[in-house]
């Protein structure tokens, strides 16, 4: 396991990193957990419930026992269970707050039964539903963290509303799960490679990259990119791929991470590839320094996401490299 010195953040993996490995014939969840343990990619283990657990949001007791046993045998610590609020699961209307509460409450109970101390929800889960879930979270002793993922930043109105809620309620059972994608310094090579492979002309990817790098809030850049890409002859599906470049890669200054505190319950160590011990697209030294200054001792889940663009790299090896990089940076004096 990649243990860190006392008083520092702890490391771990989310099985989301192994999205492609999960699909290999003959692979199952228990086998993946064993392999994570055997390769020492803990101690923390996170998973996406709807990705890994057959039958979710109903939790099969036999599966629950098998998962708990496998984690224990592998020497892994359950860190966070990613759950979802599927607000638009009914055609034509969104779930009401009552329905949203019920949809998440059953998942919160499932997380507790599996031994996870934290669940992750998305920012579509607003203050009203979180407030209603708080008593159950307290009863189950499971913290609810709202993931702040690119293109969201602290200044986005939904995030500001959450910060106000957490401050006002002054509770340890609700908080943030910041994701490193909020603060990126370059577009990952995996993304530009995938654009090229998909036949997107390099001048279009170059245009999107230049607009991405300009100062100013990301939300204001979408219209500009769509207009200028269309003028260069981009098709609608290509414009969709280009705007994803703005959506997935946030531009928040690393020092702003301090403002998530003291409400951080878990961290997503998003990355798209570690090369020679460094992450070219995310300023890990700067953000990890903030986590250290804030005396954060929770988990950072290594979340390899380049599998969305390429299967050229081994995700297990990438996670190992990411954890070595984080450990080195965290323990540097």
């Amino acid at each position, binding site marked *: 396991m990649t243990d860190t010195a006392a008083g520092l953040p702890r490391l771990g993996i989310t099985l989301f990193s192994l*999205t*492609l490995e999960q699909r290999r014939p003959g692979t199952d969840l228990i086998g993946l957990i064993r392999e994570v343990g055997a390769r020492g990619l803990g101690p923390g283990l996170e998973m996406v419930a709807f*990705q890994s657990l*057959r039958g979710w949001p109903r939790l099969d007791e036999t599966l629950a026992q098998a998962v708990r046993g496998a984690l224990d045998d592998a020497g892994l610590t359950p860190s966070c269970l990613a759950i979802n609020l599927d607000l638009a699961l*009914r*055609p034509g209307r969104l779930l009401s707050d009552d329905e949203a509460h019920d949809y998440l409450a059953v998942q919160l109970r499932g997380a507790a039964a599996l031994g996870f101390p934290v669940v992750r929800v998305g920012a579509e889960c607003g203050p009203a539903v979180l407030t209603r879930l708080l008593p159950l979270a307290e009863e189950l002793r499971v913290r609810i963290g709202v993931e702040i993922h690119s293109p969201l930043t602290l200044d986005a109105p939904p995030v500001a509303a959450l910060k106000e809620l957490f401050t006002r309620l002054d509770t340890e059972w609700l908080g943030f799960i910041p994701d490193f994608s909020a603060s990126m310094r370059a577009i990952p090579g995996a993304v530009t490679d995938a654009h090229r492979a998909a036949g997107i002309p390099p001048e279009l990817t170059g245009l999107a990259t230049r607009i991405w790098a300009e100062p100013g809030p990301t939300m204001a850049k979408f219209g500009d990119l769509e207009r200028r890409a269309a003028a260069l002859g981009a098709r609608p599906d290509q414009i969709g*791929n280009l705007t994803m470049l703005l959506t997935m890669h946030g531009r928040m200054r690393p020092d702003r991470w301090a403002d998530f505190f003291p409400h951080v319950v878990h961290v997503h160590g998003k990355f798209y590839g570690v090369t020679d011990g460094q992450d070219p697209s995310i300023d890990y030294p700067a953000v990890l320094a903030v986590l250290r200054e804030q005396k954060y001792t929770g988990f950072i889940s290594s979340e390899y996401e380049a599998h969305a663009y390429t299967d050229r790299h081994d995700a297990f090896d990438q996670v190992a490299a990411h954890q070595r990089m984080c450990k080195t940076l965290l323990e540097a004096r």
Partner: protein
Amino acid sequence: MGPLDDQVLRDDAVTVTPDGLDIAVHTHWYRALPLSCVVRLDVTVDGTPVVPDVTVNGVRRTRAELADLTGEYWFTTDPLILHVPGTAGEHRVELDLGLSIPYILTGPDRRPLLSASRADRTLTARRP
């Protein structure tokens, strides 16, 4: 445009059955979604559009029935089986799969993201 899109129709996707062909479709989304979120499932076989029956979770249904299945999920490693007319041999299968992502809401009117994946493959129907 990612690796999961390349696996929507795999090399062994088409099999021969007593009453036609089965086409195995794998999801390009990383997590299980409610069956009601399979909002586009446009299939042509050798150029002819087909509205297939669908088997998932061991139950065969018409295409139209999926829209009401809000409490049943398409798991990440399970194929959705499309039942179409046809016989053994090579077939060109074109598939336009559209998934409504129920937790990613976009725009001022908060519509779910539509994630589309298109496949166009010529595959040999095998006997199981």
